[in-house]
Structure formats: structure tokens, C-alpha cells
């Protein structure tokens, strides 16, 4: 009951749902800063060809592993490529891998979870056992194994990361659907003669949207981390480079050129942290039953 009263206080009569979400999201300062940060990185990624002063594979033999200077504000790598340029292009790869992998993961997870939760019974049993199987493999190593079996392209890496990370969401959506199936308004809709498809989409899926969106946001960060781990172990995307690939290339030259390792790591860290904060902010903003 305490929760209910808190909600009523926080809802304004003439406000759309989206406006309410935005108003509540804005209260979470760190989430707003994170959103600005991600938008900046995204803009840089989109404008990569315009912003970058050099080509991402353009080498300079006279300027190998030089520290940050006026010509190369973030230094150069071991074959004289401009670090700033590479990081700008890396943002493209890392962000798009994160977004597409999260999209794949959320689509698969929602489909499997919704099917299992809506139908229940034997279908639920089969799908959940399958989910447990996928969940059981050591993630990083399963990724490594599959990546060695397929042709290594940006698209395949996205797909493999997405297809190995949907299990948590599937279990959550299933739980949501199982409880929504028994809820009064779904029963009411059924009594009024609503079609199955309408019940699933309008009543069940839309009501599970909040946790799905939060999960999708967190998943982007997780996917970026997964891609960078793959690249770090030498099995990621090489050209154009991702942040993980750049980081890995500086690994053995840390003593002489630490900037090759430090900067991409900071970017990965910052970006993943930002997505986590945005997810946190969205969780608070989307769920009308949460106080705070």
C-alpha cells in the first residue's frame, strides 16, 4: 500500500507517459550526464571520417610509439598510427557491436521468454531447459570457441555475442509473462473476447517493456565488454579496429607506450559505466511502483 500512495503522488494528470519518464529520468543526475557522454561518443563515431586527422591505418615510420604531442594528441602506436584517429574509428565498431549485439540478445531473449511464459507446460519446460544449457557454458570461453568456428567479421562477432547473452532476459520475461497471465486485466481482456495476439502484444508485452528496456541498456555495456574481451584475446575485429583491439595491440609495449593501453581502456570503462548508469536511471524512471 505504501508503494501505491507514493505512485499516486508522482503522477500528474495532464502528463503523457513519456513525459513522466523523462521528468523522473532527469532526477538521476549521473544518468543524465551518462546520456550526454554516450551521445557525444555516438556523434564522434558517426562523424569519424570528418573528425579524424589521419587515416585509421595510415602509418608514419618516423613517429613510432611517440607520446601525446601537438600532431598526435593521444600519441601513436607501434607502427606510427595516430591513436586519436584509431580511437574515433574504434568508437564506431565498439558502439555498433554493443547496439546490434544487444538488439539480437533482447529479441531472442524476449521471444523465448515470452513463448515459454505464455504457453507454459511442456513448451515452457523445453525452452527453459534449453536456456539453462546455454547459460551453463563459461561465457567468454564459449564466445572464443564459436568465434574460431565462424568467419571472423564484424557481423558475426555481433551475432555470436548476441546469441550467447540472452538467457538472463529470457528467464525474466518468462517470469513476467507467467504472472501477467494470471492477472485480472488479462483475464478481463480474455473475457471480453480479445484475440490471443492482442493479449500478448498489448497486455503482456507492453507491460513487460520497462524491465526489457532496462535490460537492453545494460546489455549494450555488457556486449561492449564482451567484444573487448574477445579482441583482447586476439579474436576480435581488427580493421577498422575496435577499442579492445587497440588496447590489445599496446599490451606488450606498456613499458614504452602506456597510452596505447590506457586510453582505449578508459573509453571502454567510461562507456560501459555510462550505459549502466543510464540503465539505472531508466529503471527508476520507467517503474511507476518505485519510490525514490
Amino acid at each position, binding site marked *: 500500500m505504501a508503494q501505491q500512495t507514493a505512485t499516486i503522488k508522482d503522477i500528474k494528470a495532464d502528463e503523457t507517459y513519456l513525459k513522466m519518464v523523462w521528468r523522473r529520468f532527469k532526477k538521476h543526475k549521473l544518468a543524465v550526464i551518462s546520456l550526454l557522454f554516450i551521445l557525444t561518443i555516438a556523434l564522434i563515431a558517426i562523424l569519424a571520417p570528418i573528425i579524424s586527422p589521419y587515416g585509421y591505418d595510415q602509418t608514419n615510420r618516423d613517429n613510432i610509439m611517440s607520446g601525446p604531442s601537438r600532431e598526435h594528441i593521444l600519441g601513436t602506436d607501434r607502427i606510427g598510427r595516430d591513436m586519436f584517429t584509431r580511437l574515433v574509428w574504434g568508437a564506431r565498431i565498439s558502439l555498433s557491436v554493443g547496439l546490434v549485439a544487444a538488439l539480437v540478445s533482447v529479441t531472442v531473449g524476449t521471444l523465448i521468454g515470452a513463448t515459454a511464459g505464455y504457453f507454459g507446460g511442456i513448451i515452457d519446460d523445453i525452452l527453459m531447459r534449453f536456456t*539453462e544449457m546455454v547459460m551453463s*557454458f*563459461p561465457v*567468454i570461453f564459449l564466445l572464443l570457441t564459436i568465434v*574460431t568456428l565462424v568467419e571472423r567479421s564484424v557481423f558475426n562477432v555481433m551475432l555470436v555475442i548476441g546469441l550467447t547473452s540472452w538467457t538472463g532476459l529470457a528467464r525474466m520475461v518468462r517470469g513476467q509473462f507467467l504472472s501477467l497471465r494470471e492477472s485480472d486485466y488479462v483475464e478481463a481482456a480474455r473475457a471480453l473476447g480479445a484475440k490471443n495476439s492482442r493479449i500478448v502484444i498489448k497486455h503482456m508485452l507492453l507491460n513487460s517493456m520497462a524491465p526489457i528496456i532496462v535490460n537492453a541498456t545494460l546489455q549494450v555495456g555488457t556486449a561492449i565488454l564482451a567484444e573487448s*574481451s574477445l579482441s583482447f584475446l586476439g579474436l576480435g575485429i581488427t580493421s577498422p579496429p575496435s577499442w579492445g583491439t587497440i588496447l590489445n595491440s599496446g599490451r606488450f609495449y606498456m613499458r614504452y607506450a*602506456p597510452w596505447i593501453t*590506457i586510453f582505449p581502456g578508459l573509453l571502454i570503462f567510461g562507456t560501459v559505466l555510462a550505459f549502466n*548508469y543510464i540503465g539505472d536511471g531508466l529503471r527508476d524512471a520507467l517503474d511507476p511502483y518505485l519510490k525514490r
Partner: protein
Amino acid sequence: MKRYLIRRFIQMVIVLIGISIISFLIMHLAPGDPVDIMAERNATPEQKAHIRELYGLNEPLPIQYLNWIGRVVKGDFGTSFVTGRPVLEMILERLPATLILNFWAMIIIYLIAVPVGMISALKQYSWFDHVVTTVAFFGRALPQFWFALMLIYFIGLRFGGVQISGMATWGVNWGVQPFFTVLQDRISYIILPLIVLAFSGMAGIARYMRASMLDVVHQDYIRTARSKGLPEKKVVTGHAFRNALLPIVTLIGFELPILFSGAVIIETIFSWPGIGLLAVNAISQQDYMIVMAFNLLGATMTVIGMFLADILYMVVDPRIKLE
């Protein structure tokens, strides 16, 4: 409870069978014909056919699977393509190094994370709580390998007493050199990987402990304990702490799989000669027998770990009665 246990056990067996099928199929998809690896370079087609027959590779896929799983159950994971030695032997040889690292990491994690999580919950919204939740939040986003590299750069390369690769100096052995010389040597190697493992494990446990404690302190029996005049210290240690610890105990079931997934990156960076390093090397050498054994063992451990966690939960908390 008995019915639940039986159902849970059957589920586990089904999942284990599924895992073995997935592992087998992945191995089957691996590029290259195993016969080419086993036969000599200039073997004739007849000789190859003979090998194929010898290893049952001309049988239909389901039969091949049954043959393979029959051997796996007996502990025969095949032989490594690269060294020609039994896979199980190679893994068992590397296991102690991984176990040592993880054992100490676990001790440190629980010794620090449990009290930290508890204090954080008892002093909710204090500066201490804010610091703990923020650090835990940062810990989730921190790329493990980058954290390890930064430790190497800022500590390992600057302090002579800290090693960044391997687990012991050659020739420094227990019983040969004085006890403290060997101890110092071992610590100098384990310290950095231990910090990385402990830090990344701590964030989760501390958060979990905090949530569990917060849950408990709002229960009626805590209010009762307070209202009947028990000193706060007794309420916390006697009533709250012991109940909050219950869910944490079950987490031990989840520590088993971490041996496998956590080892991969850390052991690679610090050249720690454990199973993770073995597996990563096997990947780059396309030694699929080891790769599959590692996947299969890792997944099996996870399934058994989750099963144990469930049972443990029922054992430590008699209130839980599952259908």
C-alpha cells in the same frame, strides 16, 4: 521436498545431456578433418579410410555421439592433437594452479565483502554506504583485463618485489629454501592476479550481502528483538547477521563455474599456468579436444553448482518448502 529434489535432479540430467550434445556438435563443426590430423602427411586414401574406420568416424552422427559420450563418462576426453597426451591428464595437471589462485581469492572476497556489505546495509545512505555502492557499481563496468594491465603498469613494472608473469621462480621450492624465502617468492607472483580476481568478485558479493541484510533488518523478528530490549549488538550479530548470511552461503555453489570462466582472462594476462591458460592456448592452436573438454567441464560444473546451491538453500533455510 523429496518430490522437488527428484524433479530438480531429472532436470539437471536433461540439461547435462543437452550440454554434451551441444559440445559434441560444436566439436563436429570445427574446421578440418580429424583424420588429416591423425594420419601422416603422405597417407594414402586407403590408410585414411582405415583410420576413419578405426576411430568410428564413418558411423552415423548419433552413433558417434554415443561412442564419444560413453568414453567421456569414463573420464576419457580423447588425446590432444598437439601433444598427443590424454586431455584429462593435461587438465588435471593444470588444475592445482587454478585452484590455489581461486581458493585465496575466495577467502579474501568473503572476508572483506561480507562485513562491508553488512555495515553498508546497517548504515544505509551513510557516506560509507555511498562509497561501497559506487565502488561496486564501478567494479561492474571495469574491464577485468584492463584493470590487470593497469596494475602491471603502475605496480608490477615499478616495484621489484612484484612479479607479473608465472607463479614461482624456477628452483625456489618448499623444503629446499627457507620457509619465508619461498613464501615471499610465491606471494610476489600471486599478489597481482589475486587483487584482480578478488576485486571483481567482491563487488557482487558485497552488493548481495547488503541487499540480504537490508531485507532482514526490516523483518518483524528484528523489530521484536529490539522491542523486547535486546542490546543492538546482539540484535545485529545474533539475529540479523545469521539470517542475512543464509543466501550468501548458497552462493558457494556458484563459485565452481567461476573457476572456469574467471580463469580464462586472468591466467592469460599473468601467464598463470592453470586451466584457463591451457584452454586459451588450445584455442589458438585449434586443439579442439581440449577446447571441448574445457567447455563440457565448465558447463557441467555450472549445472552441478546451481543444483548444489538449490539444495544448500533448502538445507540452511528450513522455512523454504518448494512444491
